[in-house]
């Protein structure tokens, strides 16, 4: 039986580790390579790097970060942020990223998912979606809407429909990030995660809102997620990856406990 995964997300800006609260006011909290190595040695199952570098001339810094991390961290490495083409995805793959996350650019041009999945294999393409709650209406019948550009821009797209379309176009996995919950540490959006995880047949990584070990347990059980993404709760030293895994294991979940 597959283990449930604990995934840590590192937001990287100009080569430094940043953490956002509701996607604004990012603060610098250290060296991403050092953190990556620390979590790896502490039993992390997978690492996600999100490049939030604003200026395109600094984008190559990310390739260096990925390359350094890949030579020290021997678990799956997933990278996202600003990927607009198969060429961008290929560069990151060659630098050592296992999985490529597409987000805003895929909303603008959905064929990007098909192109990347054909070029790199569907298991390597992750559709990362930022979602906010809305009043259910004709355009967004699920009551959840896709937003882009770091959560700032509503798109009018229904989140459930987009998840299903992403799967059909060849995404091998979904990251479902609730921007309402992001940075709050009040827990994941369980109804959102469960709704999407039940509708698709590809793995779902729940993101946004983790603050307590119980939140991870909740989203991996009631929320039907395959993996739980954490950020602040480990970045600031409140919890350790190994401690979270021990908790989930003690609660009876199948968790990788030897590393």
């Amino acid at each position: 039986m597959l283990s449930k995964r604990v995934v840590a997300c590192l937001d990287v800006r100009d080569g430094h580790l940043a953490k956002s609260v509701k996607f604004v006011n990012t603060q610098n909290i250290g060296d991403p390579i050092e953190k990556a190595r620390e979590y790896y040695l502490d039993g992390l199952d997978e690492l996600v790097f999100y490049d939030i570098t604003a200026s395109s001339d600094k984008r190559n810094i990310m390739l260096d970060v990925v390359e350094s991390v890949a030579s020290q961290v021997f678990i799956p490495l997933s990278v996202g942020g600003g990927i607009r083409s198969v060429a961008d995805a290929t560069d990151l793959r060659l630098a050592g990223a296992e999985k490529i996350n597409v987000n805003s650019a895929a909303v603008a041009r959905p064929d990007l998912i098909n192109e990347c999945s054909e070029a790199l294999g569907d298991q390597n393409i992750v559709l990362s979606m930022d979602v906010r709650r809305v009043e259910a209406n004709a355009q967004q019948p699920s009551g959840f809407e896709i937003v882009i550009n770091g959560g700032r821009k509503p798109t009018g797209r229904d989140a459930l429909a987009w998840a299903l379309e992403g799967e059909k176009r060849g995404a091998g996995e979904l990251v479902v990030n609730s921007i309402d919950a992001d940075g709050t540490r009040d827990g994941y959006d369980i109804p959102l995660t469960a709704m999407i995880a039940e509708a698709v047949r590809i793995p779902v990584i729940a993101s946004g809102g983790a603050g307590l070990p119980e939140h991870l347990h909740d989203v991996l059980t009631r929320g039907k997620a395959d993996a739980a993404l954490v950020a602040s709760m480990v970045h600031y030293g409140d919890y350790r990856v190994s401690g979270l895994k021990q908790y989930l294991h003690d609660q009876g979940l199948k968790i990788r406990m030897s590393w």
Partner: protein
Amino acid sequence: MTLILDYDAGNLGSVKRACTEVGLKAEFSADPAAVAQAERIIFPGVGAAGSAMRSLAERGLDVALKRAIANGTPVLGICLGMQVSLEYSEENDTQTLGLIAGRVQRFQLNHPELKIPHMGWNEVRVQQPHPVLAGIEAGDEFYFVHGYYPKPTAPEHVLAVTDYEDDFACALGKDNYVGTQFHPEKSGRVGLRLFENFAKWDGVWQPEGVIHAQ
């Protein structure tokens, strides 16, 4: 020198980085002459069986690889590099190398919550001791990403199994060939241990209770 077979099947850097980490000097090559000379060979792969077999054939690597294996060179196949060691793959309806009797099949799962590909960490249960799998303990997990799985004909070729609805063979061995469905290069410390073991392996192995005629 360890050769990492580079037949255009995807991201091979991670395999090389894992070799470097354990002090195994490895170089990429797609040259059949280099395959013949190699001290040991790692045969990685991601992608599809059909295109992989075409790439191997175009470069004459299928023949070179079979010859090296016949000559006793230790070979480690990973993921697709393991799958093509069987006779046939349902993926793209492909005839494969035929080093090990059996076929590769698509997962057919009954449980609605189980997903394809089988992606993530899962336990590897060793069935027969093998020098390359030395040190794997009960409960050790490795990283998997695959939609097809190997079904070797003879139980003597099954080194380890993993459970995904049913048990499937996740490590195969025959003489100087060993192959894994999981990715040791992405499996943390236990995965690196497998590369260390391979670096020291002389290519000699016999299944338990089976005496090979020389």
